[in-house]
């Protein structure tokens, strides 16, 4: 049984004084346990909407989401969400932001500290727990967001363009860390990106989406063997990387 199933999912947003806007139209997808799925596609093709519905932040117009075969009816601690922007509460420190998620999961304060320290160390932010978000760089803020999602020990991680607002260098560093992290943990991951490079490096399968209405255009398997993290820059020289990057690039070009 797939870990996560998206069944004939349609989402329409009401538009004032006009016909409704179809953000997703009959989306079907099965994700296996431990699989890393990347979503790419022009902006407005419904990537964020799809992730938000899976998280339970939004309700589908029709269709359903199944986790372990059971329908999803709302948010849950089995899913950890990483937001693209404004993902941290600015009045809480990094540690308090993580504590927020732990408290929401019902973990008592005296047992939060250990987990907080551990996940901060996992994302390379040991000793930064007392910083407020504005005292951290954009890349560090996203790491806190990832640490917070990790803290609740979800079965599925949902990341919506987590590195989208970062500069190229920071972005590449975080991509490599993400690769190492996910290969060590083996979690099921759904990852939205607008970078073909990022998708090919990280994913087992890349889902190409097309806009108006948002649909799955193609699902491209990436057969670069794992662990890829140890390859470093050489990853981008493998024939599979070059070929898949080329293929995806052309497909996206056709869409815009």
């Amino acid at each position, binding site marked *: 049984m797939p870990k996560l199933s998206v069944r004939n999912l349609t989402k329409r947003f009401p538009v004032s004084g006009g016909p409704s806007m179809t953000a997703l139209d009959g989306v079907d997808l099965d994700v296996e346990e431990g699989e890393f799925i990347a979503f790419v596609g022009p902006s407005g093709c419904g990537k964020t909407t799809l992730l938000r519905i899976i*998280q*339970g*932040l939004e309700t589908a117009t029709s269709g359903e989401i199944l986790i372990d075969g059971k329908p999803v009816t709302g*948010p*849950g*601690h089995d899913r950890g*969400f990483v*937001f693209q*922007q*404004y*993902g*941290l*509460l*600015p*009045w*809480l420190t990094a540690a308090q932001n993580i504590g*927020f*998620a732990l*408290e*929401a*999961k019902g973990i008592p304060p005296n047992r939060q500290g250990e987990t907080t320290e551990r996940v901060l160390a996992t994302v390379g932010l040991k000793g930064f727990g007392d910083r*407020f978000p*504005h005292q951290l760089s954009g890349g560090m803020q996203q790491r806190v967001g990832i640490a*917070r999602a990790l803290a*609740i020990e979800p079965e599925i991680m949902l990341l919506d363009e987590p590195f989208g607002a970062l500069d190229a260098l920071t972005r590449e560093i975080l991509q490599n860390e993400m690769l190492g992290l996910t290969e060590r943990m083996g979690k099921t991951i759904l990852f939205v990106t607008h970078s073909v490079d990022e998708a090919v490096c990280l994913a087992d399968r890349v889902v190409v989406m097309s806009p108006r209405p948002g649909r799955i255009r193609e699902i491209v398997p990436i057969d670069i063997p794992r662990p890829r993290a140890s390859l470093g820059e050489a990853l981008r020289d493998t024939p599979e990387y070059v070929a898949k990057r080329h293929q995806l690039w052309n497909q996206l070009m056709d869409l815009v």
Partner: protein
Amino acid sequence: MQRSAQASAVSKSAGEPEAASDPNRQRRRERLLQFGTLVLLLAVWEFAARDANKLLVAVPSDIAVATWELLLNGELFWATLDSMSTFVLGFIIASVIGIVIGFAMGTNRTVEVILDPYINALYAMPLVALIPILMLWVGIGFLAKITIIILFAVFPVIINTVTGVKNVDRHYLDIGKAFMASRFMVYRQIIAPYALPYVASGLRIALGRGIIAMIVAEFLTSISGLGGLIINYTNAFETAKAFAPVLVVALLANALTVLVQKVEERFGRWRRR
């Protein structure tokens, strides 16, 4: 001179001490300018009013002497204590009521729809008009004064709290939702911190209105406190003494505003760069 100091500050990469001294000197000069103007103003007042009727116009030197007298005999102290205990209690009650009602209106559409017209109408109307009627119900004592202060102070707190609560960024509410925070957590850790600056500016407005209410109440209900001193000494044509409590009210209003600002800064620490 000025230019060379600037040039050296720019040329040295670690020139912060010099760079910092410039705005400091600027600030000192501005303070001096303000103080000088004050002294000049008092001098002109003193001079111009010297030959005026002492029953009607007081000069600064007389006011200083009168203030000193009222300080020594304790009159000013007891009047201030009387006024302030009433004011502080009224202000605190108004703040609590205002924040609670504001939160309720901001988070519950039904409550908002029901209360909104009354809140807006009462905020806009001259509440002084209600005081005589109010006195029929609550008398002229302590209760009357507290009620009047609350009435004047509560509406800006409500209105600003509602604005803050309703403005909460959807992104932050999504965080609460995604991680399944309880309603209480969302109130305490998302909505309240977000609304805080709005509430604080409501409190500052409430402070000003509350002080006015306090003085008006002391004029119109049982005559007492600082407002009472003003009325009594004016009626006795002891104009210089009437100025002393005015001075105290002015100082207190400013001190309290600074206090509210400090409290706001303490809670808004996360915003400081």
